[in-house]
């Protein structure tokens, strides 16, 4: 074997090897399926379809033919919860005339799930990713559940033809409520940490969203964030960040994994942030928080406010706002491939959307236009012994939503902790 072959060519050949033609049975399933799918009406924003319109969401042809579920979509801004409660130890209430029915498979799944959670074991087998389900067997104070119930969530048409269920578990006066999803035939329940990004918190305890703990930079920094913040997988993006779900009822689910037409408000953590320079620095920053704040403040194009001394995570921090006018030319350090350096503190406000992007790359610098979003910066000198010299917490939002984003970030910031070996 020639072990000096071009690896890329081998990879390309491996990638190209595989089926190329859509099987006829799948084509047939699509042809049949479109006759049973109720289409959206143009001009009516999803999910606000007309009241009483039946929708049928087959996920597969076999499901379409086997399922007897009919979903009534309510035309409303707020959710409508209809009492079709079932479960373990729950009270049964009469069902109203216009309710959806849950398939026997899913009913058994939910009942089994609730039984196991009350029993204190075996619930994992009912959920696709059980480790993501908070408070599986007990409340935040450790109280074991005494009974549970579930009801189907109506009024919002969920992505991918899934049905949403609100599960409630009771421990004395404490009620833990969670959102789960299921296909018409199961086979497992799904728990989405972001609840598909709507205004419904995926887990609440006595009505309050339950915060989830996150660790970053090899757990050197930890924090807790609850709905309406959604944290991204740390390995997916260069810098850990979370998105803020827009406020207001009737927020559309995100069917495409996170994109919204008007973007997300975000909170990012940037280790050893850099304002300028070329190429991506290696190792801890050469400047401390004060020097970085001074550099930011001294650039008139950045519209920075004077830094204010605050405390974050028990560490001293400098808080300042950066308000770069939309369309202003800004430069951020980049690597040889044109990737923005993860330390580039201005990258969150660099216009990168494909359609409008006009970023040019040269000599380790990416130059483009600012989005016009505002940034609230918390610049922190990390404790001695940290792998980083400075940490920047960056909250990004358009001016109209800036205050809400900053206020919503307060509990997240208050929970931040440094853990230095």
């Amino acid at each position: 074997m020639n072990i000096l072959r071009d690896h890329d060519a081998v990879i390309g050949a491996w990638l190209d090897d595989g089926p190329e033609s859509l099987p006829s049975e799948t084509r047939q399933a699509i042809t049949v399926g479109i006759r049973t799918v109720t289409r959206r009406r143009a001009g009516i924003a999803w999910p606000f379809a007309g009241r009483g319109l039946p929708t049928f969401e087959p996920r597969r042809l076999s499901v379409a033919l086997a399922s007897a579920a009919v979903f009534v979509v309510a035309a409303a801004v707020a959710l409508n919860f209809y009492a079709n409660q079932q479960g373990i130890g729950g009270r049964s209430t009469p069902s109203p005339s216009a309710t959806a029915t849950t398939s026997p498979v899913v009913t058994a799944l939910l009942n089994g799930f609730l039984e196991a959670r009350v029993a204190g074991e075996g619930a994992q087998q009912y959920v696709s990713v059980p480790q993501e389900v908070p408070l599986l067997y007990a409340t935040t104070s450790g109280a074991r559940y005494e009974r549970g119930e579930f009801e189907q969530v109506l009024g919002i048409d969920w992505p991918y033809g899934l049905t949403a269920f609100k599960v409630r578990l009771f421990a004395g006066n404490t009620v833990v409520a969670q959102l789960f999803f299921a296909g018409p035939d199961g086979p497992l329940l799904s728990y989405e940490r972001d609840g598909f990004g709507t205004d419904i918190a995926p887990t609440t305890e006595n009505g309050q969203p339950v915060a989830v703990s996150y660790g970053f930079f090899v757990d050197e920094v930890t924090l807790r964030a609850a709905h309406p913040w959604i944290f991204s997988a740390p390995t997916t993006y260069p810098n850990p960040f979370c998105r803020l779900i827009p406020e207001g009822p009737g927020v559309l689910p995100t069917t495409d994994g996170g994109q919204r037409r008007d973007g997300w408000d975000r909170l990012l953590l940037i280790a050893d942030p850099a304002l300028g320079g070329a190429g991506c620095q290696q190792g801890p920053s050469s400047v401390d928080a004060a020097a970085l704040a001074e550099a930011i403040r001294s650039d008139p194009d950045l519209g920075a406010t004077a830094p204010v001394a605050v405390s974050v995570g028990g560490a001293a921090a400098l808080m300042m706002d950066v308000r770069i006018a939309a369309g202003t030319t800004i430069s951020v350090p980049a690597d040889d491939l044109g990737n923005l350096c993860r330390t580039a503190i201005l990258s969150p406000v660099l216009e990168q959307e494909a359609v409008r992007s006009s970023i040019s790359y040269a000599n380790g610098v990416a130059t483009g236009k600012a989005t016009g979003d505002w940034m609230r910066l918390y610049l922190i000198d990390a404790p001695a012994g940290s792998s980083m010299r400075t940490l920047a917490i960056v909250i990004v939002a358009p001016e109209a939503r800036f205050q809400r984003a900053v206020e919503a970030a307060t509990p997240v910031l208050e929970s931040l902790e440094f853990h230095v070996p």
Partner: protein
Amino acid sequence: MRTELVERARQGDEDAFTQLVDLNGDRCYAIAYRILRDVDRAKDAVQQAFLLAWRELPRLRDVERFQVWLYRLLVNACYEEARRHKRWTTHVRILPMEGPSAPDQMASVEERDALERAFRRLSPEHRAVFVMHHHAGLPLAAIAEVVGVPLGTVKSRLHNSIRNLRAALESEAEGTLVEVRTA
């Protein structure tokens, strides 16, 4: 002609939509298979994507963007399939016999295995970018639109993906080299 089909399908013409399935189905399936590395899940993802497309098509305002929009539905369906089946099963395929006539660039059994394992370690988001660029040939800007992330993120994912796959082959090659030395 394709935009005309899309427009007709948007108006409810099932035949027009069926023609769109015929025109796009193969490519969508090829992409889905290479992201998911499973025939059945790829079929499910493609079916889901087209059914969603039929349902949502009335809301597609710019018919010129049909393909990008369809790819977005497809990629999201692949993500959903990947989430539903987080445990990867061994995918056994009948491999062609290798011999003197095999092209130089064909992967050996060991290389295929190394690539499959390395590819499985990539997130669905990384796999989608990699497949759409290197197999489907989409430009990076188009991929950024499809997956809904900044262009820089697309580049980063692509870079990481190819780096991991190359590393898998290099590890495999080093292992073979060691075997040769000790033979």
